[in-house]
């Protein structure tokens, strides 16, 4: 699964990067975020785009797995 790293990007870049990558990889995506705001924003976007999400906490970051 393709993985993108949004750490350190300010709003709304994490969602924007997710949106762009999903256009190229519509089957799913792994997204690394480094704060709760980005996590919430990305999850909300994925839900509205019709993806199932699972979140794993890894050290200081979160891994969001988005699947069709």
């Amino acid at each position, binding site marked *: 699964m393709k993985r993108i790293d949004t750490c*350190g990007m300010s*709003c*709304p870049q994490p*969602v*924007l990067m997710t*949106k762009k990558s999903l256009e190229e990889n519509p089957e799913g995506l792994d997204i690394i975020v480094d704060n709760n705001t980005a996590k919430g924003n990305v999850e909300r976007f994925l839900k509205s785009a019709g993806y199932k999400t699972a979140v794993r906490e890894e050290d*200081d970051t979160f891994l969001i797995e988005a699947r069709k």
Partner: protein
Amino acid sequence: MNDKKGIIIAGGAIGIIAVLLVYFGNPANMGFCIACFIRDIAGAIGLHRADVVQYIRPEIIGLVLGAFLLSLKNKEFHTKGGSSPFTRFVLGIVVMIGALIFLGCPLRMVLRLAGGDLNALVGLAGFVAGIYIGVIFLNKGFNLKRSYNITKIEGYIFPAVNVGALILLITAPAFLFFSEKGPGSMHAPIALSLAAGLIVGALAQKTRLCMVGGTRDMVLFRDMYLLTGFIAILVFSFVGNFAFGFFKLGFAEQPIAHTDGLWNFLGMAIVGWGSVLLGGCPLRQLILSGEGNTDSVISVMGMLVGAAFAHNFGLASSGAGVTANGKVAALICFAFLAIVSYLNSEDLVKKKSSQALSKANVE
């Protein structure tokens, strides 16, 4: 709906608190104004000498410390920095100049609208137009690059500075400037303003409330979350203004406002565009500053310096209208925004360099 409940309650509380602050002494339609209040602080420490707008506003201190304390408690305090700091500093200056041409930050724009000031409606149109321009560049790959984790101490300094500002306000040493007339002399009691700031700071930290994010996310992603907060502030402060008899519909003779439609529009267009590039409105920059985001601290420092420029160089508007210097400054701000937007948009700049490359290959 459930996920929006929090931000509706927060927006509602902010709308009501803003009206209460006016009732207890703040200038009309200015329960909160991040731009005006930072400008007042710039005046209080003598960065400008406009003697009607000098006061250390405890609301600002409260907003920062409220966000700081809640982020500590929720383990959301992370010290970060290094994402194009000087670009952000100048963007802070630009946003402040735009706000002082209109006479209010996006939050005060909403409060003015809720008080019946129709000039704010023209400002809102400009604000939305500015956000649209910013979004075009976001879609072309605009970003200010990553920030990085830095030492915790760096993030604690700004909250500490705000504690220092509070001590200065309470002890009121003679080297500070406090207005004896004009908007700067009008304020709710310190404890009340501070408490209001703390509550709103915590609410805004919790809900990520952002006045520019509402329209931006709606345009970009059809996401209503932040816009819901924006609307909640408008509705509840409108109701509050009505209840207290503060509501007065019209363009003329609105408190701390002018009727020059074109410059109300352009001033807020600068604020909208600049705030999209910064990743959040002035309120959001303050909240992020409290959470350890030193890029936002730099933006706030830019606003402080921008406020000093605005009054020292006669750029800020007043009830009498816009100044000639302000108009020139606005044009410079637009030029800066255009250049920064273009040069930081990866698709635009990359396309050009790859075109140049393919051209070179053909040759």
